[in-house]
């Protein structure tokens, strides 16, 4: 080997090599993302029943956490489980591949966990494995993306996409009350997804209650910062004046706000969606167009752990009369604005 390297031991080669190694070492140090307060979505809400009871092993399978909201889902589940001394959490490596996720859930079934919490990468495609778990006597808490049949889960808990649109529409409608000929635009999420259609439908339905408000434009971004910036820049160019904007997702909202800033526009009210920390902070500071955001709370994963624990211990939910947990729980998409943002700050995700 050394015989062949003579060409590379020239001074130029040596200089280049040293520079490359140096750059590499410097770069490797630059992958760190640790900052002082990296504790996400702390859960201050009270747990269902604080006193510890029968030990429960909960298996958790979710998709690959490739964006902020899904990441917050995992964190919420983990942190909640840690709070209970009687809960052991078996968490799988998240996967977006249906076959892989089925395999992971089957492994959890074979391990004979007491309860399963499943956020499927694709609800319809994972129905069979949900059924399999239920038949094996393991109750399934289906998180957010719903299975094809209620037979595949004991309890479903998830967000309300239609309700998000509805509440965003009502908030904007109320704010624009008394303003004649008010114009509203919508920056939607990925149009391939059913949830985007539901959000838009809810938004349109709410706006029907306000005859003075008219939706003049809608463009779909892709839940990414890059697409949010690009689509928002075009929308701003297309509409020289409008009164309110609803953006489906706070992640793409980072890009949308950037475009608004770049265009130097501040003549309208903006409402976001999902509940990212950056959005909460902007709402609290109250020095930009973003005045509110509609929740799609990632805390549902913490609640799913609560439900799974209650199932494992054969308890109901405190505060309800029933001895059993409900079969289905649709969460409320609350509007967070300046008046209540402090309360939600700890649930904001990055």
């Amino acid at each position: 080997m050394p015989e062949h390297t003579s060409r590379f031991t020239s001074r130029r080669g040596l200089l280049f090599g040293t520079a490359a190694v140096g750059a590499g070492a410097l770069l490797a140090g630059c992958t760190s993302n640790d900052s002082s307060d990296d504790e996400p979505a702390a859960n201050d809400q009270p747990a269902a029943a604080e006193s510890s009871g029968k030990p429960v092993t909960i298996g958790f399978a979710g998709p690959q956490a490739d964006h902020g909201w899904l990441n917050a889902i995992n964190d919420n589940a983990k942190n909640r489980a840690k709070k209970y001394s009687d809960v052991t959490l078996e968490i799988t490596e998240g996967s977006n591949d249906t076959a892989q996720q089925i395999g992971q859930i089957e492994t959890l079934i074979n391990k004979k966990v007491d309860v399963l919490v499943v956020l499927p990468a694709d609800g319809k495609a994972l129905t069979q494995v949900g059924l399999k778990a239920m038949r094996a006597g393991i109750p399934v808490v289906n998180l957010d993306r719903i299975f094809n049949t209620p037979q595949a889960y004991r309890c479903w808990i998830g967000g309300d996409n239609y309700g998000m649109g509805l509440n965003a529409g009502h908030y904007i409608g109320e704010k624009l009350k008394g303003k004649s000929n008010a114009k509203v635009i919508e920056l939607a999420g990925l149009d391939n997804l059913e949830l985007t259609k539901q959000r838009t439908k809810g938004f349109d339905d709410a706006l029907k209650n306000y005859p003075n408000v008219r939706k003049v434009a809608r463009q779909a971004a892709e839940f990414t910062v890059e697409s949010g910036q690009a689509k928002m820049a075009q929308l701003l160019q297309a509409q020289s004046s409008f009164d309110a904007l609803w953006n489906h997702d706070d992640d793409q909202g980072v890009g949308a706000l950037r475009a608004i800033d770049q265009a130097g526009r501040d003549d309208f009210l903006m409402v976001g969606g999902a509940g990212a920390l950056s959005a909460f902070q902007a709402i609290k500071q109250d020095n930009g167009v973003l005045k509110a955001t509609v929740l799609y709370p990632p805390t549902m994963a913490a609640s799913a752990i609560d439900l799974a624990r209650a199932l494992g211990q054969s308890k109901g939910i405190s505060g309800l009369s029933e001895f059993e947990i409900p079969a289905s729980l649709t969460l409320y998409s609350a509007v967070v604005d300046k008046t209540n943002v402090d309360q939600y700050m700890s649930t904001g995700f990055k």
Partner: protein
Amino acid sequence: MTQHVSPPRGSADKVPPASESFAWRGVFARADVRTLSLLGVLAVLILIGGITKPDEFLDTRNLQLVLTQASVIGVVTVGMTFVITSGGIDLSVGAIVALASVWATTVATQEYGFAGILFTAVIVGVGCGLVNGLLIAYGGMVPFIATLAMLASARGLALQITDGRTQIVSINSVLDLGERDAYVLGIPPLVLVFAVVTIIGWLVLNRTTFGRRTVAVGGNAEAARLAGIDVRRQRLYLYLLSGLCCGIAAFLLIILSGSGQNTNGNLYELDAIAAAIIGGTLLSGGRGTITGSVLGVLIFTTITNIFALNNLQSDVQQIAKGAIIVAAVLVQRRTASTT
């Protein structure tokens, strides 16, 4: 379908007389007829935009907007044009842009400020290009497979670094470059970078030995080797060049979006390849045109802009985009073969 085909066909009628009207037509090589036909397509698009949305489309701000949106993918396409001209392909450009943009926006990198972000973005791009180049030129891997592997790994690494989080940039000197105050004589800095990269790319491809070697390797690698060209080293340099362009593009994207995210650069590989091919670069190698690629990018960006200004929804946009790609290539074929 016929509705979408008809406007570019109109340009086909216009273009040949336009080119004949030049008395100094001899200046134009055969390849330039293609360029003129692309300009025709762009002119028709501008006409459509101007008719449907005169106030919003024909506006300085809109011109700035279209050129800015074209900058990021434009820089990537210049690099891609070189790779395709040499008979290769780089499927990893989008993933490299993603990796470079997240690596350059971590908390640790941002501590080094403007220079740290720029340096990291460029070096990560070049580093990925180096790996691609070594695997292809000296490892004997097929470019399709090597860059596909890079696509997967770079996306994975980007996800690992970000943990799926959006990394917001807080360095004002970087952010300010995306604001209107930074425009030089009305030209956004991003567009200036795009222009400089384009001009350098054009000069290198058309006026240097490096460019001629690239074309030779793409035309016939064996003949190029027999003519004394170090084909392996040339290939290595080309993927390095593509990586460098991705690094620059990542920096532009950081300025534009004020953040780094692992989803950045989604499907850039397809956009860049499509723009280069529409521009007249041969997918099989041996012929490449930077002017054509840039026009290809501008055609795509203009289409997107016109669609958004007219409030067309994603489904219609995608159908029409496909039809326009086919129409543009057909127009180009016809004009190229009739002259």
